[in-house]
């Protein structure tokens, strides 16, 4: 997969203390450049998956099962086939996928839709000459089922929980003896926190256009975060070799994990296109995005903390129940951040899976930390109160100097610095005691929480070409899911090659280009960015050779190569053009250090003492994530994460009918993501940091750091405001009302 000629390859076995991004002088890196893809997006010319102009296109509408569990008996295609505009009703009970693929998997997701495992499972696609004709026929298609027994209610199914196979974090981890430490400790917390199922609710619905080429290969225009592995998933679903599948995913209208793996519309569109001999477009209706793609699992977390009287943790326990469909291995890695955030000798971090007949659970923005840090950081707040200690002091007291489980150093870690800087900027010293601050009808409170998100490096490559006209092109199957990948990759090349950003073209999201890990897990910038770095490093060496100077004596700036007392336009020393491929992969540094981004969230909320309504008044996030490549897109990532935190704290919850698993709030009117009026002034501050163990660009992941802990800071502020501790999320007003004072 990664064999190339002019390739500069690096395995991160050793630290990489020197970075060209520090020695180069173009001045592009870190600057708050506007997105280079911005104008095409706001002018509507950026092609999202459903927008590629394809000749002879037919329109598909998916058909979802309307029972919660059982067996599909029949599909009466003849009943709708003669409707005006209808071309065909297509299904393949063996090859249609029951669930979406998980991120990074090269094996296909569970196939076969004879068995109905949840309401909404895609069992057929109706293809017509227009979207409306297809939708009409799909809604009228008679499908019969034999109903079976399903498990829909978490509370009732919890007795069937089991230990799932290890995932990105161990299912069960035990160090020392938490029970004994709890028994001995003078101060303890033992509390259970509940978080609901959530949906990524990306603006762009899942969509695919499937086009079969004359040579039997498939081109799929899709909205996918990881095209390289997604092509592999799709090929195996269809019985093709991976080389026969090309995925094009140039622009993605938000993914947040829901588009990491292929979703059912891709396989349905491909099979339908083959059957009718025409390209087929399948766009999921919003209700289907909710019902048939992926959810973040609900969680029930028992958190136990034991501490000495001066606040030193002696035990941390986080025992979680999560859920997924029967037979699906992925579990929400609730405790993944808990492993590394605080010191404490005795540790028990477990995950048990409850099988439920609901849509697949999988990755949603910061899988693990997004929910796990709610339980842990609310418990820390409760512990601080019990200790009579400031919650920031408690956190700093337990800031780990080395990985508390592996004993290895952190690659970089600025937790205490973030807490201190945040306290100063936020005015933490003005925080009143619980229930003591008031502004008219509103009870005012402040809360804090730590943030942590593991850093990952994923094998990735990118090609950079330098042309005689002094421009450069970057190409990679990396994606931009709205994060700013296009822009930061251009900035990296600009910095190293000494070219203004507007002379650099970036082409992403096509599996015909060098493979990359795509976007997910906040690894995109560090991984694809390093690949671009390495390609540019090689090109720089070639330019030095052309200038007959040592690499170190070459300066590249504003399109000029300068060295040996002369200067030349870069375009004039590249001959017919130069190209290089950069290739990065993780190495021994991954185990030699523990790598994560850290930060701190501060929230001020008002709780209405009459109604229990909660409104966030202001928030501050202080983050340290290594080098910031673009101050604007990095800040935007954090704003988005903090906004997710507001949703997790206050509004977002998938509601399933416990009688049949029906997801009742399956649109954006009733699944409440925060709207503008819910999001107050958010302030983001980055601490200066470099991470030489992470990668040659010294950057760590940002996209998911902003959500980690954000909801906990809000919940802690709610307690500080009104002295009511709600441990069931989201904290809606009905949960606060019983604790509020009489009028």
């Amino acid at each position, binding site marked *: 997969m990664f064999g190339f000629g002019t390739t500069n390859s690096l395995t991160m076995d050793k630290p990489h203390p020197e970075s060209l991004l520090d020695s180069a002088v173009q001045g592009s890196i870190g600057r708050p450049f506007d997105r280079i893809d911005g104008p095409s997006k706001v002018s509507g010319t950026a092609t999202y998956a459903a927008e590629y102009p394809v000749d002879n296109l037919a329109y598909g509408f998916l058909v979802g099962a309307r029972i919660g569990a059982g067996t599909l008996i029949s599909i009466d295609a003849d009943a709708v086939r003669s409707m005006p505009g209808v071309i065909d009703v297509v299904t393949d009970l063996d090859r249609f996928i029951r669930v979406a693929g998980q991120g990074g998997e090269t094996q296909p997701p569970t196939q076969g839709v004879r068995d109905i495992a949840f309401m909404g499972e895609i069992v057929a696609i109706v293809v017509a000459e227009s979207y*409306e004709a297809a939708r*009409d026929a799909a809604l009228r298609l008679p499908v019969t089922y034999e109903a079976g027994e399903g498990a829909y209610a978490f509370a009732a199914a919890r007795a069937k929980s089991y230990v799932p196979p290890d995932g990105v974090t161990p299912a069960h981890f035990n160090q020392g003896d938490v029970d004994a430490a709890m028994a001995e400790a003078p101060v303890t917390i033992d509390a259970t926190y509940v978080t609901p199922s959530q949906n990524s609710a990306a603006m762009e619905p899942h969509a695919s256009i499937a086009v079969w080429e004359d040579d039997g290969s498939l081109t799929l225009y899709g909205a996918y975060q990881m095209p390289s592995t997604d092509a592999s998933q799709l090929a195996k679903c269809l019985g093709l070799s991976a080389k026969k599948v090309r995925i094009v995913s140039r622009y993605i209208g938000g993914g947040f994990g829901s588009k990491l793996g292929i979703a059912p519309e891709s396989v349905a569109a491909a099979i339908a296109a083959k059957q009718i001999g025409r390209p087929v477009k399948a766009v999921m209706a919003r209700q289907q995005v909710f019902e048939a793609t992926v959810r973040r699992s609900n969680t029930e977390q028992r958190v136990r903390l034991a501490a000495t009287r001066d606040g030193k943790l002696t035990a941390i326990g986080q025992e979680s129940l999560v859920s997924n469909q029967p037979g699906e291995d992925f579990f929400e890695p609730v405790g993944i951040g808990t492993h590394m955030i605080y010191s404490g000798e005795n540790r028990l971090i477990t995950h048990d899976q409850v099988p439920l007949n609901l849509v697949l659970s999988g990755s949603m923005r910061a899988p693990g930390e997004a929910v796990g840090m709610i339980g842990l950081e609310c418990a820390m707040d409760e512990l601080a109160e019990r200790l009579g200690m400031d919650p920031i002091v408690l956190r700093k007291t337990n800031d780990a100097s080395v990985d508390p489980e592996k004993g290895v150093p952190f690659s970089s870690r600025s937790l205490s610095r973030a807490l201190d800087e945040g306290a100063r900027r936020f005015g933490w010293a003005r925080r009143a005691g619980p229930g003591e601050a008031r502004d008219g009808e509103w009870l005012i409170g402040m809360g804090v929480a730590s943030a942590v998100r593991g850093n990952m490096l994923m094998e990735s490559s990118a090609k950079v070409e330098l042309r005689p006209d002094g421009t450069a092109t970057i190409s990679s199957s990396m994606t931009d899911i709205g994060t700013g990948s296009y822009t930061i990759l251009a900035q990296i090349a600009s910095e190293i090659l000494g070219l203004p950003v507007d002379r650099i073209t970036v082409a992403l999201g096509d599996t015909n280009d060098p493979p990359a890990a795509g976007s997910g897990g906040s690894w995109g910038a560090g991984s694809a960015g390093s690949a671009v770095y390495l390609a540019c490093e090689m090109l720089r060496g070639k330019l030095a050779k052309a200038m007959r100077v040592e690499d170190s004596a070459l300066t590249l700036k504003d399109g000029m190569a300068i060295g040996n007392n002369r200067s030349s336009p870069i375009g004039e020393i590249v001959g017919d053009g130069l190209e290089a491929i950069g290739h990065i992969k993780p190495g021994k540094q991954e185990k030699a250090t523990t790598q994560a981004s850290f930060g701190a969230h501060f929230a001020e909320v008002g709780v209405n003492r009459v109604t229990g309504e909660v409104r966030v008044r202001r928030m501050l996030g202080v983050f340290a994530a290594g080098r910031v490549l673009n101050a604007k897109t990095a800040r935007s990532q954090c704003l988005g994460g903090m906004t997710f935190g507001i949703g997790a704290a*206050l509004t977002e919850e998938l509601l*399933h009918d416990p009688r049949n698993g029906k997801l*009742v709030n399956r649109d954006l*009117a009733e699944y409440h993501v925060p709207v503008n009026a*819910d999001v107050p002034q958010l302030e983001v501050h980055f601490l200066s940091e470099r991470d030489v163990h992470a990668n040659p660009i010294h950057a760590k992941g940002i996209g998911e750091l902003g959500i980690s802990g954000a909801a906990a800071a809000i919940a802690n502020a709610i307690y500080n405001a009104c002295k009511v501790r709600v441990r069931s999320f989201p904290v809606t007003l009905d949960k606060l*009302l019983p604790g509020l004072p009489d009028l």
Partner: protein
Amino acid sequence: MKSFAYERAETPEAAVRDIDGATARFIAGGTNLLDLMKLQVETPTKLVDISRLDLASIDRRDDGGLTIGALVPNSDLAADPQVIAGYEVLSRALLAGASGQLRNKASTGGNLLQRTRCYYFYDTASRCNKRSPGSGCDAIGGVNRILAVLGTSPHCIATHPSDMAVAMRALDATILTLKPDGDRRRISIHALYRLPGDTPHIETVLEPGELITHVELPKPVAGRQVYRKVRDRASYAFALVSVAAIVAVEEGRIASASLAFGGLGPMPWRNAAVEAALVGQAPSADAFAAAADALVADARGYGANDFKIPLARRTLIATLRDLTGA
């Protein structure tokens, strides 16, 4: 979406003549109807587009009241200086509803007739007596946190979602209509809506094909006005509880009170007993509590929505405090 015929009406008379009320629908802003058609909850055979009719003006009558054309967009109505000056509760209610984009499109007449947001109404695979008479009600025993606690029946516990209509009820609005036979009639808003009983699919007294042409407001009344809406997020969320209130205090006594409620029942709710508990009383915690008790006297929760009962009490009491300064 099921195929349908489309006609654009040039006059109200033509609109009602062209419609077969049983299977056709008028369309103005379409902010609710089109969503329902996409889901095939509504499957009209024909749409009669009334959006170009000359019914978009707001006129002052000689008696001091306002006549509002049925096609006045919610945004325009909320921003009208006469509405702001004399009917503040209406302006506030409108601005508390939906989103800016929806308010630009939604019409006055359509807002009165918008359908419930009950989850089960929106899914043709669920049982719903309102959508499919006689099929049953999945909301009872299902997920019902947002549903009604007043005026429900064993057949339906849906709420009416409008904010505007709640204010209209507090303002004693009158609905003017044109019937297919050419007759015009005036319907008090208090008589417009029907309780679900065993026919929850029949929501108003309007006859098939009857077109709302105007809404009349009486001349402005004395008193302070407020619309208070309690909801799960700060915008673009339906009311859990809302109160439209007009209260006048004279010489230390409540001289008049007009109170209507959203989020609680199958129609914008008004209960004379609530007002009777206040009128003639000095503003006081006891008087407010008595009014609140009257409001929820017949309330019944269905589990997840039980909280609406204490929430309604608290919201009403706080609103009365605000308005009277007590």
